[in-house]
C-alpha cells in the first residue's frame, strides 16, 4: 500500500512502489532528545495515531530529573517509548526495536541503560557530523562507528537540514518531522496522522497547526523516499469508543466522575499533573482544586472539607505522603472519609522524583502512629486509575474511613486506550445530609457487627458534637477509660473486616493450580501476566494473581496460594539479595507484598524485586520465574 499519492515529496522522487511493508505482531519505538525538543509530544502523537488505527499501545515517558538538563548529555535523555501491538498492550515491554535520537549523547544514555535490542535500528540526527565544534564532530562520528561495530543498524537522518527548509527554528520542528517519518515506517494512514496533529495543537492557532502539518508531511515523504524498509502492525479498530489518556489524567477524570468536590494538594512530582488537569476542568462542574501551603495543610484541608460535607481527595507522592501521616491518623480516629492518592516514586526521602517504584505499600498500610487501619488499594492499569477513584470515594463514605489509592510514576505518564466510560448517576455521592438527627442518636453509634456508625454532618439539627483525635466514647466525649479506648479500637478495626467481607476473590491468570504462582500488585500487572503467558506458551505451569485490595485483602487468597507448589511475588521495590554475604533467612527483608502474604497466610512466599527506577521488563520476569521453577525446594 502506498501513501505517497496523497503527499508531496519535498526533494527525492518517491520510491514507495518498490517497498513492501513487513508485517509485525508488535514493535517498540523510542524517540529520544534533549529536554524541550518535543520528543514526548512526538511519541504521544504516534501513540495516538496507533490507537486510532486500532493498535494496542503503551507509552513510557523517559523524564530527566531536571527541567533543563545540559544539552547533549547522557543523563539528560528525555523522550518516550511507545510499544505498539496488534493486540492490547499492557506494559512497556522489553528492549527497543527502533529508536530515533536527536543527538548521539542522549542515545548513549539509552544504549548504556541496556534499553536497546541487539541489532536495533537507530535513526540518528546527522547534523552533528557537520558541526563547527570538532569535539562534537569527533564524539558523533566515534559514537556512530562504535554503534555500527556493536551491530546496530544506524541510519543517519538530516533532520535539521530537512526541517530548516520548512521552518526558521528547525530545532522546534524536528519532532513533527520525525512523527511523519515514523508514520511512514509503520504504514499509518496519513489522514489519521493529520487528524492527530490537528488535535495535538488544537489549542493553538491555525498557522501553528499548518506548519506542523507541513513538517509531518515532509517527514512522511522523506521516509518514503529514503528508507528501504517499512513495517505494518496489523490492527483492528475497536467497535466501541476508546479513551486515550495517561494514568494521572484518568485519576483526575475519575475524581470528577466520583462526585467529589474538593481536591487539596501541594505540588509534587510525579503526582502533580493529575491536579494540573483537574485544576483546568474541575470548576466547570462545581469542584475546585486548592493548592495548599504544604502537604500537611493539603491533608488537613481535605479532612476539614470531608468533615463538613462530601468526601474530599488529596493527591500526592511519597515525601508528601509521609507528611500527611498525622492527618491520616486524625481521619482514622475521628472516622472522617478521605481519599488519598499516592503516585509513588523512588524513595526513601526525596529519592527519585521522576522514577517509578512500589516502595510505599507498607507505609500505606501501617503508616501513622498507633493502630490506624486504613483501606489500601492499588491501581494496575490506566482504566483502573479512572474507576478506582469512584470506588475509593464510595468505600471512604460507606465506612467513614481513609482510602489510600496507590498509583506510581509509570502509570502517571503511561497511555493506554480503554473503553469510554458510560457515566452513571450512581457514581456520585448523595447530597449532603442536613436532616435532623433522631433523638438519642450518638455520633459514634457503632454497629456491633460492622463497627460502622452514621456520621453527623454540621448543619444537621440535633447532631451537635465535637469530634476529636483523642480517644472518645460513643457520644464523642473524650474518654480515657480502658473500656472506651478498646471499644474505639475494635470498632475502627471491625470496619476493615466489614469491607473485607464484600471483596471478591481476585481471579487467577492462567490455570487455577500449578508449579508456581506469581503474586503482584499495582502497575506490574501487565508485565507479570505477559511473562506468565510466555512461559505458559512453553508448557510451564505458571499462573499469576494480581491484588487490587492490599488492605484489607479479600478472602480466598490462602486457598489459591495452597494450590501451587511455589509462590513468589514480583515487585518494584527493595528486598534483600540472597547472594549478599550477610543475608540469610533470619535477616532477609522481603519485598512488601511478600512480607504481607507470609505474615497473613503462613505460606513460604519468596520474592523478586528491583528498584531501578525503571518499569520492570516482562523478559526479566520470565527469566526470574524460569529460575524459580528450576530451583530445588
Amino acid at each position: 500500500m502506498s501513501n505517497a499519492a496523497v503527499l508531496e515529496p519535498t526533494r527525492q522522487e518517491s520510491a514507495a512502489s518498490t517497498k513492501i511493508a513487513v508485517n509485525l505482531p508488535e514493535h517498540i519505538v523510542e524517540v529520544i532528545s534533549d529536554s524541550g525538543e518535543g520528543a514526548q509530544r512526538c511519541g504521544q502523537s504516534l501513540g495516538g495515531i496507533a490507537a486510532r488505527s486500532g493498535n494496542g499501545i503503551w507509552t513510557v515517558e523517559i523524564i530527566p530529573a531536571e527541567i533543563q538538563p545540559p544539552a547533549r548529555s547522557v543523563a539528560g535523555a528525555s523522550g518516550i517509548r511507545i510499544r505498539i501491538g496488534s493486540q492490547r498492550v499492557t506494559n512497556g515491554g522489553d528492549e527497543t526495536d527502533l529508536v530515533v535520537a536527536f543527538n548521539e549523547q542522549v542515545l548513549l544514555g539509552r544504549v548504556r541503560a541496556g534499553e536497546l535490542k541487539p541489532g536495533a535500528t537507530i535513526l540518528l540526527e546527522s547534523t552533528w557530523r557537520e558541526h563547527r565544534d570538532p569535539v562534537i564532530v569527533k564524539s558523533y562520528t566515534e559514537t556512530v562507528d562504535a554503534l555500527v561495530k556493536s551491530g546496530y543498524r544506524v541510519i543517519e537522518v538530516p533532520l535539521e537540514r530537512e526541517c530548516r527548509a520548512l521552518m526558521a527554528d528547525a530545532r522546534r520542528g524536528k519532532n513533527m518531522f520525525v512523527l511523519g517519518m515514523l508514520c511512514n515506517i509503520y504504514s499509518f494512514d496519513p489522514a489519521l496522522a493529520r487528524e492527530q496533529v490537528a488535535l495535538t495543537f488544537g489549542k493553538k492557532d491555525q498557522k501553528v497547526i499548518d506548519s506542523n502539518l507541513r513538517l509531518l508531511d515532509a517527514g512522511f515523504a522523506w521516509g518514503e523516499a529514503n528508507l528501504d524498509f517499512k513495517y505494518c502492525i496489523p490492527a483492528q479498530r475497536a467497535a466501541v469508543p476508546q479513551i486515550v489518556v495517561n494514568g494521572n489524567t484518568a485519576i483526575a477524570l475519575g475524581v470528577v466522575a466520583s462526585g467529589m468536590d474538593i481536591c487539596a494538594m501541594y505540588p509534587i512530582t510525579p503526582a502533580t499533573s493529575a491536579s494540573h488537569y483537574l485544576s483546568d476542568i474541575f470548576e466547570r462542574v462545581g469542584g475546585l482544586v486548592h493548592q495548599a501551603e504544604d502537604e500537611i495543610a493539603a491533608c488537613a484541608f481535605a479532612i476539614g472539607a470531608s468533615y463538613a460535607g462530601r468526601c474530599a481527595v488529596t493527591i500526592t507522592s511519597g515525601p508528601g505522603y509521609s507528611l500527611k501521616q498525622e492527618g491520616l491518623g486524625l481521619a482514622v480516629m475521628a472516622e472522617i472519609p478521605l481519599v488519598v492518592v499516592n503516585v509513588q516514586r523512588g524513595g526513601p526521602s526525596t529519592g527519585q522524583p521522576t522514577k517509578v517504584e512500589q516502595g510505599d505499600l507498607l507505609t500505606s498500610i501501617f503508616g501513622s502512629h498507633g493502630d490506624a487501619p486504613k483501606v489500601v488499594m492499588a491501581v494496575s492499569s490506566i482504566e483502573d486509575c479512572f474507576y478506582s477513584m469512584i470506588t475509593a470515594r464510595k468505600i471512604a463514605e460507606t465506612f467513614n474511613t481513609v482510602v489510600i489509592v496507590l498509583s506510581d510514576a509509570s502509570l502517571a505518564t503511561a497511555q493506554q486506550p480503554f473503553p469510554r466510560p458510560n457515566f452513571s448517576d450512581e457514581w456520585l455521592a448523595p447530597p449532603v445530609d442536613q436532616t435532623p438527627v433522631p433523638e438519642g442518636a450518638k455520633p459514634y453509634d457503632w454497629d456491633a457487627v460492622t463497627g460502622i456508625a452514621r456520621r453527623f454532618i454540621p448543619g444537621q439539627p440535633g447532631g451537635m458534637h465535637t469530634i476529636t483525635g483523642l480517644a472518645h466514647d460513643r457520644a464523642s466525649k473524650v474518654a480515657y477509660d480502658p473500656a472506651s479506648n478498646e471499644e474505639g479500637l475494635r470498632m475502627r478495626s471491625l470496619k476493615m473486616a466489614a469491607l473485607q467481607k464484600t471483596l471478591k476473590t481476585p481471579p487467577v491468570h492462567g490455570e487455577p493450580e500449578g508449579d508456581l504462582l506469581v503474586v503482584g500488585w499495582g502497575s506490574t500487572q501487565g508485565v507479570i501476566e505477559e511473562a506468565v503467558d510466555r512461559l505458559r506458551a512453553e508448557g510451564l505451569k505458571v499462573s499469576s494473581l494480581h491484588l487490587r485490595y492490599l488492605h484489607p485483602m479479600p478472602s480466598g487468597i490462602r486457598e489459591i496460594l495452597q494450590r501451587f507448589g511455589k509462590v513468589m511475588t514480583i515487585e518494584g521495590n527493595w528486598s534483600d539479595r540472597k547472594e549478599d554475604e550477610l543475608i540469610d533467612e533470619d535477616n532477609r527483608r522481603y519485598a512488601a507484598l511478600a512480607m504481607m502474604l507470609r505474615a497473613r497466610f503462613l505460606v513460604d512466599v519468596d520474592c523478586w524485586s528491583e528498584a531501578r527506577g525503571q518499569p520492570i521488563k516482562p523478559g526479566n520476569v520470565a527469566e526470574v520465574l524460569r529460575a524459580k521453577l528450576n530451583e530445588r525446594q
Partner: protein
Amino acid sequence: MDMRIPVSQCLIRLHEEKHDLEDYQGGVPRWCSGCGDNAILAAVQRLCRDEDLAPERTVFVSGIGCSSRFPHYMKTYGFHGIHGRAFPLAEGVKMARPDLNVFVNTGDGDCCSIGAAHWIHAIRYNMNLTVILHDNQVYGLTKKQASPTSPIGMKSNTTPRGSVLEALNPLTVTLGVQNASFVAQGVDWIPELLYDIISKAFKHKGFSFVRIIQRCPEWLPKMFEPWLHDPGKTLLLTHDKGLQPSADLGRIYKNQREHDPLNIHQAREIASTTDPIPVGILYHNPDVPCYEELRHAGGPRTPEAIRAGLEAELDKFTIWPDEKLAQAA
C-alpha cells in the same frame, strides 16, 4: 390553606426560637480555676446568644493545647483537631460549607510555633473565619515550656535559666502579611472589651484575628500582675469604627488613644508596643476579598452538570469507532 399566623403567635415563636446561653454550653470546662480560657468561653457563648447563631450551623475548630479544648465546652459542632493544624482544617470546613459560622481556637504554641506556616497562609487566604488566639505565653498542657510568645528571660522547664530569645509578636506578624483584614487584641481581665472585640471580629467578613492575652494561674501566676494593678499600663484604642468603651470603664482605663482601624501604618506602630498593652481594634479593612468567594465555593452542583462536564472532557480523548463497526457491535 390560610398561611397567616396571628402576630401574638409569631412573638411566641420568636421567643421560642431565640437561643439562651445554655444552648451553647457544652461540657463543664476542665480548665484550671482562674484560667483566662474561661473568660474567653463566657464571651463567646454570650456572642453566640446575642447573635442567635444556630448551634447546628456553627463549628468551632481547634488544634491542640489547653485553648484547643474549647470546642468541647460549646454545644455546637466542634472539631478538636491536631497540633498546629486548626487553620487548614477550618479552611476545609469553610470551603466545603461557606454557609457555616466557623470559629478557630488556637494557642500560642499551636498558632505561632507548630502551626506558624498555616497561620501566615491563613491570613493570606482571608477566609471568613473568626480566629481567637489564646495567648498565655507558655505551653500549659505539656507543663510549662517556653512558647514563641514567652518574654525573654522567662524561666520554664525548657529554659531553666531564662529564655534567651525575644518574644514573637503575633500582632506585628499578622499585620505584616498580605491580605490581613482584621487584627485586634484583648486581655482576659477586661471582659467588657473582650466581648466587644470578639463581637466585632465575628461581624467582620474575612479572617478576623483576635489575640487575647490571658493569664495562666498554674504556670505563670504573677506574669500580668503589674498590668492588673496599674490600669495605666493598658492602652485602650478607641474609635467610632473601633471600640467605644463604656464611661465606667473609661474612668478606670484612662490611658486611651483614638486610632482609626483603617490606618495600617499606625496599626503596625501600635502593634509593636508591648507595654502598655494595646487593647482594641488595631486594623479592620472590610474590602479584602475572601478566598472562598474568589474560588466560588458552595456553588450549585448537579449530576447533570457533572455528566455534561465529564462527557465534554471524554470527547477530547475519544477515538470513535468506524460507523460500520459500531453498528455491528
